[in-house]
């Protein structure tokens, strides 16, 4: 990862921040003035800047403006760190593009947490190292494990006790936690239970370590809500492996939520015109991890709220002055009114309280009270805010779920309606199909009758009156008969074609070679004098509708037989190609055809040879293709004029030509 650039004239601050960042595995570059910073930026682009406002050679906010104006440095996240107690400086910094603003004196963990938050969006993706928080009371063990994890590419943070662990987990939001089961004070199971109770931290993957060798330790760990478990005596590699698996499983939850956490760093806006009281307040609260932004007037407070979110507002009201007015304005604004507002007053008695509550304050504390009281009230308000946020989030999630469920239901209904429509269309189609089929039969029935008369009576004429007409007359009668017979064959072919389109497939396993031999037998029976052979495997098992495949073979072998009639020896072959799915071919040594017309082969009534050369209807291959397609298969042809043809087909989906 690229280093973080710290620009601050105080060596102490530079050292302190560099140490804190180094502890989290983040490298730093340090500059004491703007000139150095400019020089460094010219040669190296950092991951982000921590920038002081008051510098010996200029103003940090002006420098920020300079950075934002430059294309290269413009997108860099900038955290401004300033000793300025003036809220106006804070507002000016944020207005000019600071991504974060922290007042001095600061807490290192608070700054670290803000740095993590700023680096997170830019560092999303695989290059961001996984940060692991190690909690163990043994320093040696922590150091050893940290070294091992460091070598494996993890970034480590350490805590020596459960209490410190909880605080650092909330502040620094590590990607995973390794916690020792046995520790003085808050032990491992208690730590995990506490972690799981905090909505902001509950999803943090957590691995518990224990020394015990029996199963009890594991049960205790899992009972407490640990995601994983390892025994110390298994060694570092085992811990590493479990950690990797756990982080991998956690997956998305690595985008650690930035939801409010009870334990996390909080920013409190305090409004008062008395600087001393503000300082005192800020001193007390900082110890609890709060950052206190000090505004000197209601106007300033509202201006600040428009540029920076805070977790709570403390309004210090003095009699008759702007306190209640500020309160009213904050509570009257839709964007600010969810921020808890505690009113502090020097006045005692119920009247002031009523006035404050009426103005919209969430709570009311007397200035004279102990800081402990204020702290407790503050925590209570933060908790309330957090629960409200949580409730709102849950409600939003619920409403979204509800909307999703409703949308899903609507989709299901639409789908059901579509299915119903489809069913209806299907039924209509079924009826139409049946009608078409019976129409085909009726038409063919009626067409055949006159054809029979034409053929039959021509035949009678030839047989009984042949002597009374001359050769040409007899020839013409022969032509009439041929025409009638051809039309009969066409009708038969069309009927078969329409039948295979509709017929239900009856799939079973059968022997394609045996079927081919049967079809071949019928061919040779028709022309017993012809010299011919069929080459086929002894057995060729395949899966399909054998009645329809018989029609395929009748056509393919019939064509092969027809187109090789001029050879001295007719040689037909049924073969198989070892592809997936298996491809079968029928080849012959006949006249073949030019591949130019191969794409026209399978269209109905397409013929490549003239009727006088080779009789045929042109429906056979269309029927063959229809049957193959109904099986989900494909058919293609290869031929050369004078060298025969080869038709290859599959009976199952898939495969490439």
């Amino acid at each position: 990862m690229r280093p973080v650039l710290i620009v601050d004239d105080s060596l102490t601050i530079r050292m302190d921040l560099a140490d804190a960042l180094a502890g989290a595995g983040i490298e730093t570059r340090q500059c004491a003035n703007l000139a150095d910073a400019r020089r460094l930026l010219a040669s190296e682009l950092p991951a982000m800047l921590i920038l002081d406002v008051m510098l010996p050679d200029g103003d940090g906010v002006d420098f920020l403006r300079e950075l934002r104006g430059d294309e290269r440095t413009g997108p860099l996240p900038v955290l401004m760190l300033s000793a300025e107690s003036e809220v106006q400086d804070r507002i000016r910094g944020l207005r000019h593009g600071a991504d974060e603003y922290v007042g001095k004196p600061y807490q290192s963990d608070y700054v670290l947490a803000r740095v993590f938050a700023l680096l997170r969006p830019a560092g999303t993706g695989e290059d961001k190292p996984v940060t692991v928080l190690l909690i163990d009371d043994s320093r040696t063990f922590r150091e050893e494990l940290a070294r091992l994890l460091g070598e494996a590419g993890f970034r480590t943070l350490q805590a020596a006790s459960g209490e410190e662990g909880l605080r650092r987990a909330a502040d620094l939001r590590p990607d995973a936690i390794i916690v020792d089961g046995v520790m003085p004070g808050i032990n491992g199971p208690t730590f995990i239970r506490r972690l799981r109770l905090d909505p902001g931290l509950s999803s943090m993957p957590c691995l518990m370590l224990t020394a015990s060798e029996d199963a009890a330790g594991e049960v205790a760990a899992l009972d407490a809500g640990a995601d994983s478990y390892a025994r110390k005596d298994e060694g570092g590699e085992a811990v590493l492996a479990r950690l990797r698996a756990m982080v991998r499983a956690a997956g998305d939850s690595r985008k650690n939520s930035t939801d409010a956490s009870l334990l996390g760093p909080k920013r409190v806006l305090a409004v008062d015109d008395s600087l001393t009281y503000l300082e005192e307040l800020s001193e007390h609260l900082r110890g609890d991890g709060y950052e206190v932004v000090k505004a000197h007037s209601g106007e300033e407070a509202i201006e600040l709220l428009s540029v920076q979110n805070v977790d709570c507002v403390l309004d210090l009201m003095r009699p008759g002055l702007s306190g209640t007015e500020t309160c009213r304005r904050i509570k009257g604004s839709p964007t600010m009114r969810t921020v808890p507002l505690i009113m502090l007053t020097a006045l005692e008695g119920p009247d002031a309280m009523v006035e404050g509550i009426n103005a919209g304050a969430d709570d009311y504390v007397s200035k004279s009270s102990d800081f402990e009281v204020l702290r407790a009230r503050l925590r209570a308000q933060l908790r309330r805010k957090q629960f409200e946020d949580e409730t709102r989030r849950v409600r939003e999630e619920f409403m979204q779920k509800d909307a999703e469920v409703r949308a899903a239901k609507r989709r299901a209904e639409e789908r059901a309606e579509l299915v119903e429509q489809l069913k209806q269309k299907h039924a209509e189609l079924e009826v139409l199909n049946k009608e078409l089929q019976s129409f085909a039969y009726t038409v063919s029935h009626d067409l055949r009758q006159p054809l029979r008369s034409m053929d039959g009576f021509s035949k009678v004429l030839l047989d009984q009156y042949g002597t009374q007409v001359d050769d040409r007359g007899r020839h013409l009668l022969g032509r009439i008969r041929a025409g009638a017979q051809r039309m009969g064959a066409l009708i038969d072919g069309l009927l078969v074609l329409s039948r295979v389109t509709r017929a239900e497939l009856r799939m079973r396993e059968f022997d394609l070679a045996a079927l081919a031999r049967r079809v071949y037998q019928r061919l040779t029976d028709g022309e017993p004098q012809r010299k011919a052979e069929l080459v086929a495997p002894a057995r060729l098992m395949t899966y399909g509708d054998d009645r329809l495949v018989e029609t395929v073979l009748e056509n393919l072998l019939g064509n092969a037989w027809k187109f090789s009639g001029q050879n001295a020896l007719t040689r037909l072959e049924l073969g198989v190609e070892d592809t997936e799915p298996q491809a079968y071919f029928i080849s012959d040594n006949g006249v073949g055809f030019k591949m130019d017309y191969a794409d026209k082969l399978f269209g109905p009534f397409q013929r490549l040879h003239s009727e006088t050369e080779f009789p045929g209807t042109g429906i056979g291959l269309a029927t063959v293709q229809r049957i193959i397609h109904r099986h989900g298969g494909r058919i293609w042809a290869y031929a050369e004029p004078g060298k025969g043809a080869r038709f290859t087909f599959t009976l199952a989906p898939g495969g490439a030509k």
Partner: protein
Amino acid sequence: MILLVEDSADDEELVKLALQQAGFANQVRVARDGEQALDALAELPAGVRLVVLDLKLPKLNGFELLRQIRANPATAQLPVVVFTSSDAPEDIRRAYEAGANAYVCKPVEFDHYAEVVRQIGSFWINLNRKP
């Protein structure tokens, strides 16, 4: 005697020519529709030994005629060959259900036609050889 139930004069002629070729001439009685067929059967209950039946007939169609033949004890045992242009599976199924003994489709080509008729004729001859 063969009872040929056939509404087409052409087919009647063709059947007769085919039977003639096969040597079974002059033993055919023709009915043009179902009603005529029933009349003929009532008139000559013992004379008719074979019915050759077209399905598409005016008035009473082939299926109905076939059912009536089977329903009448006098003709219930009479051999009936359906001889028709249709090769629709539905027609074949219904014809057998109605009680046909055989279903033969009329070929377009006369040579085939004549052969089929010859075979029907010899079936009839064989029937008549029985006592």
